[in-house]
C-alpha cells in the first residue's frame, strides 16, 4: 500500500454567493499522476485554490503528508510541499524568466537555486536561451513552461497544474504533457486539471470527474476512458 499523500474530506467552499464546492472527497497516493476533469465552471480551479490556501474552505479537511492544512495560509502550504501552477500561467510579466524562476524558490534559503534552474531547463530546453527575456514577451507555450518551472523551483512533493493546455497548439500541448509525465517519473506527484479530457486521461494513472462542485466519478484512467457517461459528456462519442 503506497503512502497517502493527500486526503481531502467533505470540502466545501465558495466566494460568498453560495458554495461552489459541495463536500469534495479526494485521495491521492504519493507518486501518482492524477487527472481532475470537469466542464467549465465545475469548480476545478476553486478546488486547487482551496488546496493552496487562496480560497478559504467553509468546512471539510485537508490532510497533506500527515499534516493538517485545512485553511492554512498559502506560504504554509508552499512550505509543506504543494505547488500550484495557476490557470492562465499568471507569470510576473514584466520580470525576466530567470527572476520568475528565482521567485519560485522564494521560501528556500539554500544555495542550490542555480542548479534547480538548470533542472527546469533540462525539462524545458526551449527556455535555455530565454532566461533573460521578459516573461510577458514569450509565446503562450513558453509561458506555460515558465509557470510550471516556477512551481518546480519550490521543490514540491505535489505539483498541481491548472489547465496547461489552454490556448496552446496541439504540438505544444503534447510537449507540456510529456514533461508533466517525466516530472512525475522523477518522483513528484502531479495533479493535472484539464478540460482536454483525452489528453488528461492519456497521461494520468487515475482520474476524478468534478461536476457542479461534486465528485461525480473516479477511477483509473482506463476505467474513465471506457465509462459511457464520460465518453458521452467529455469525449463526444
Amino acid at each position, binding site marked *: 500500500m503506497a503512502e497517502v499523500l493527500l486526503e481531502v474530506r467533505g470540502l466545501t467552499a465558495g466566494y460568498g454567493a453560495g458554495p461552489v464546492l459541495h463536500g469534495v472527497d479526494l485521495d491521492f497516493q504519493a507518486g501518482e499522476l492524477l487527472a481532475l476533469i470537469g466542464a467549465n465552471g465545475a469548480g476545478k480551479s476553486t478546488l486547487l485554490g482551496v488546496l493552496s490556501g487562496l480560497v478559504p474552505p467553509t468546512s471539510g479537511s485537508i490532510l497533506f503528508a500527515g499534516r493538517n492544512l485545512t485553511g492554512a495560509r498559502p506560504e504554509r502550504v508552499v512550505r509543506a510541499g504543494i505547488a500550484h501552477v*495557476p490557470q492562465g500561467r499568471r507569470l*510576473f510579466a*514584466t*520580470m525576466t524568466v530567470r527572476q520568475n524562476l528565482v*521567485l519560485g524558490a*522564494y521560501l528556500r534559503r539554500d544555495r542550490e537555486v542555480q542548479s534547480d534552474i538548470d533542472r527546469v531547463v533540462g525539462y524545458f530546453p526551449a527556455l535555455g536561451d530565454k532566461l533573460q527575456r521578459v516573461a510577458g514577451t514569450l509565446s503562450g507555450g513558453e509561458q506555460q513552461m515558465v509557470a510550471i518551472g516556477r512551481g518546480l523551483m519550490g521543490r514540491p512533493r505535489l505539483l498541481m497544474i491548472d489547465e496547461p493546455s489552454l490556448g496552446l497548439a496541439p504540438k505544444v500541448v503534447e510537449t507540456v504533457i510529456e514533461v508533466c509525465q517525466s516530472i512525475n517519473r522523477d518522483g513528484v506527484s502531479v495533479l493535472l486539471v484539464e478540460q482536454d479530457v483525452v489528453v488528461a486521461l492519456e497521461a494520468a494513472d487515475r482520474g476524478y470527474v468534478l461536476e457542479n462542485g461534486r465528485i461525480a466519478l473516479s477511477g483509473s484512467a482506463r476505467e474513465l476512458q471506457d465509462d459511457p457517461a464520460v465518453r458521452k459528456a467529455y469525449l463526444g462519442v
Partner: protein
Amino acid sequence: MSLFVQQVILGLMLGGVYVAVAIGFSLVWGVLNIVNLAHGALVVVGMYATWFLFTHAGIDPFLTLPLDAVVLFAIGYLVQRGLINRVIRAPLFFTLLLTFGINLVLINLFLLWFKADFRSVTTSYSGAGLNVGAVTIPYIRLAALVIAMLLAGAVGFFMNRTRTGFAIQAVGADKDAAQLVGIDLRHVYALTFAVGAACAGVAGGLLSTVQAISPTAGEPYTLQAFVVVILGGLGRVSATVVGGLLFGLIEVLAQSQVPGLGAGWSNAIAFAVLVLVLVLRPQGLLGRLA
C-alpha cells in the same frame, strides 16, 4: 542669463525635495494600489522628529535622517499591519477614506502635542551658499537634492537587487501568483507601506531645514506627490526621479518667467500640470501602460 541659470538650479533643487516626498507615495500606490492621503502627515512626522532631535538633543538635522527613517518605518509597518490590511481588498474608495482618516488623526495629534505654533530648524549654516559667478547655490538645498538622489538610488537598489524588493514587485504585479510562490502578503504589504513611510520621514527631515514646521505643513505635499507620480508615471523609481525634478523645474520657471504667476500660484501650476499630463500622456512620461 545668469538669472535663468539660477532659476534652473533652484528648480532642480526644489525638484529634489519633490523626489524625496514622492518616492514613498509612488511605491505605496504602485504596489498596494493605495493613494495614501496621509502621506503628507507622515512627512510632518519626519519634520517634528528632526526638530525634536535637533532642539532637544542638539543633533545636526542631516544626521537625524536615519532616525527619522527608522521611526517612520516602524509606524508605517504597524499602521499597515494593524489598520490598512483590514480593508486592503475593499474598493479603492475605502482605502482612500481610511488614509484620509489617518491623516486627520495625525494632524490632531500634532496639534495636541506641538500646538499650532510654527517651529523651525535653524543651523549655523542655514543661510550659507556657494557662489559661482552671479549664481548662488544654497548649501542646504544642494544637500537636500543630493540626499534625495541617494534615497532614490537606495530604493531602486532595494527594489531591483534584493529578494524582498522582488517580493514587493511580485505582489504589485499579481497578488495571487505572489502568494503561490510563498510570499506572505500581509507582511509584504506592511513592509511596503513601512518603506514608503520611511521615505516620507527622510523627506520630512530634509524639509524641516528649509521651511516652517506646523501640524498642517504636509498638506501640499500629498498633492505634489500625486502630481509627480502622474507626471513621471507609476511603477518605477526612475519615473519618480524624472517626474519630481521636472515638476520642480516647471514650478520655479513658471513662477519666475511667466508674468503674473507668483509664489501663490504653486497649487494652480500643479493642477495645470496634472490636467495636461492626464490629457496628453495618461501613463506619465516613463510609465508603463497598465
